[in-house]
């Protein structure tokens, strides 16, 4: 075989893997859409469930997922930002900081069901928040915290040192430098990380299973101490509980489709943001 043939084979192999991945993605989309599309309607999105989940809509689950996700971000974003800024901008490079970094990365690898059990023990029981939006949000918040910290750290580290120097050389304090130069420059990167975390928080089942979610509520939550329905848990419940598995399955696929669309939308926003940043960076 001459080297051109080797190259041809190499490219062939690479394009085959591409085709394979697209195929898998396409199959996922196809099955979810094919099975879920016919239950989706305006009513499905805006009504409360009726007749033991087999009719009506999933509005409370949408609202519940929205509250849980917003709650998680409200909790995790300020803490994550502060932590990342401290680690990157203030703390002198040392062994201690490497250990902290490693621990945060390890935290990101903890399975989500473990966070669920932690939330149950600490927020639901020990702090007495009960099974509630508050407990669920805090649990989800802790789960996405490492992601937000790493994304923010990366975005901060990507800000050229020369910009910090430019600011300090003009007589800016370190705090002014962070606020007026480093953070604005890092913002698109931080936003991308945050949005991806939103997607993760919206889609996870295990962390809210013991801390916030319930199969059925009559209406919408009235306070942060109420239980809620949530999309991912609703899918799980429809498939494992209830009395009309046939009809429930169809609704579960409808929910899955909605969740898929939500998460894809969220990722699309992140991609657009990143693209914008690239364009701005190169002109």
């Amino acid at each position: 075989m001459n080297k051109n043939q080797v190259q041809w084979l190499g490219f062939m192999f690479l394009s085959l893997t591409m085709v394979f991945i697209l195929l898998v993605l396409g199959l996922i989309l196809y099955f979810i859409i094919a099975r879920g599309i016919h239950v989706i309607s305006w009513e499905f999105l805006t009504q409360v469930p009726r007749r033991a989940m087999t009719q009506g809509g999933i509005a409370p689950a949408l609202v519940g997922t929205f509250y849980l996700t917003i709650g998680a971000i409200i909790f995790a974003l300020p803490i994550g930002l502060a932590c990342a800024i401290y680690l990157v901008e203030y703390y002198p490079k040392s062994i201690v900081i490497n250990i902290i970094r490693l621990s945060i990365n390890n935290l990101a690898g903890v399975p989500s069901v473990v966070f669920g059990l932690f939330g149950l023990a600490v927020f639901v029981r020990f702090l007495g928040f009960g099974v509630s939006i508050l407990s669920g949000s805090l649990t989800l918040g802790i789960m996405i915290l490492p992601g937000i910290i790493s994304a923010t750290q990366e975005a901060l580290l990507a800000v050229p040192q020369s910009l910090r120097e430019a600011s300090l050389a003009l007589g800016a304090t370190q705090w002014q430098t962070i606020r007026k130069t480093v953070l604005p420059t890092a913002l698109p990167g931080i936003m991308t990380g945050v949005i991806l975390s939103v997607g993760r928080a919206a889609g996870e089942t295990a962390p809210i299973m013991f801390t916030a979610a319930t199969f059925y509520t009559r209406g919408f939550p009235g306070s942060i101490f109420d239980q809620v329905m949530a999309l991912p848990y609703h899918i799980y419940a429809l498939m494992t509980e209830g009395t009309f598995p046939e009809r429930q399955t169809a609704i579960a696929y409808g929910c899955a489709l909605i969740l898929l669309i939500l998460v894809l939308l969220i990722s699309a926003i992140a991609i657009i943001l990143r693209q914008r940043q690239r364009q701005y960076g190169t002109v």
Partner: protein
Amino acid sequence: MEQYDNVRIRAEEVRFFYGDKLALKDINLPIFENKVTAIIGPSGCGKSTFIRLLNRMNELIPNTHFEGKILLDGVNIYDPDVDVVAIRRKVGMVFQKPNPFPKSIFENLSYGLKVNGIRDRHYIEERVIKSLEEAALWNEVKDRFNESALRLSGGQQQRLCIARCLTVEPEVILFDEPCASLDPISTNRIEELIENLKQKYTIVIVTHNMQQAARVSDYTAFMYMGELIEFDRTEKIFTVPRDKRTEEYITGKFG
């Protein structure tokens, strides 16, 4: 030589370590008021390390250590009770690679004033225009204030950085190889600029371009492997150097 000119900065027994590595060995050097002092020497000899000590920029690098004194108007800027922010406002700096903020041209220029607590719009505009004129950039950007500074050419960006440095009215300006990334025409303009700026400012310029040092400076310091080998009036260094290594360097035998 010191009878004629006023010493603005004096380095006394300066040593600097990166970790355990000694990068500057007992440097003693005066910087004279309203003169251009060039620091030359082969790359890696410690020019940047030295010039960055003059506005305490090296403090940003972790695991480094400074010994000695840098006296600015007789006060050691490394004394614990000295305000580093005030020092950096007095001693401005232009870096090797142009480093405009990814903001508009006007925001780049108003930045220094704003972080120093100036809010008066009129005054800010006045300073911005004045600095652009001093940096010979006014004509090129006067209609483009709201454009991103990143759209300027490399040479324009570097003059913008000089203008930005001038807005806060420093007394000393440090240039660390300001033309290293520029084309010959831009280099020329910056050299002319430095020539004009010395009426008002005390200037220290690092360069590894000996012609440039000869053209723009009044005094020249030659460094080699972390040591200051020779310091004198520029014409003396370039005509009758006392040290053999200086002679070899300026005649291009090494470096």
